[in-house]
């Protein structure tokens, strides 16, 4: 499946990229994508994950065409 992955704030700094398209097998989870793209860095404990603009947890199973985002705890307001 094709997944559009986006990175924000210090996650973007950590990975040195702000978005990419990845190919991954059917049934992959958000964490599975992280392991594929993060060059071996463990998924940060406090990371937030969204799929198609809704919060999900790391075990969330993706569908083809999903927009997946990784970002740190939010600090707006």
């Amino acid at each position, binding site marked *: 499946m094709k997944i559009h992955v*986006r990175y*924000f*704030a*210090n996650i973007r*700094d950590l990975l040195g990229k702000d978005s990419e398209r990845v190919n991954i097998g059917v049934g992959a989870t958000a964490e599975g994508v992280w392991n594929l793209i993060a060059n071996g860095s463990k998924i940060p404990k*406090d990371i*937030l994950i*969204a799929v198609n*603009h809704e*919060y999900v947890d790391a075990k969330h199973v993706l569908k083809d065409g999903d927009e997946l*985002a990784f*970002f*740190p*705890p*939010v*600090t*707006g*307001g």
Partner: protein
Amino acid sequence: MKIEIITEQFDPWELLVDYKKNQLQNDSKIGASSIFLGTMRDFNDEEDIKTMELEHYPGMTEKYLTKLVNDSIKKFKIIDGLVVHRVGLLKPTDPIVLVATWSEHRDNAFNATREIMESLKSEAPFWKKETTNNGFRWVKPKNQNEEIVNES
């Protein structure tokens, strides 16, 4: 309802007057307006702050704020609500966020504005990067013991 992510400095009072004139005109059912304005300080966690960059997740942020205000309209029976949030490069004293709610009685507006602000702070996808004399740092949320990630 109005949800706006704004890239330029804004005047919160002018914005409120415009909104009331165009959307809430003659609404003689309104007895209470509760307004919160967050502004940028020049000092945070024991360091002087020169500038601040505010980043958001276009699409998700707007969707989340819309949900927040819709939830408040139902839960607190408010008549209307507004959230305006600045992004981009800010300097001290710049407005960051404006939340306003309108209701018949004061309890509802007070509670709605408070809850919108608390939810926005803890869940809306915005991130702050501060510039200090030692470089820049990503701000960490206060409920995490005010830790700061230094990346000078």
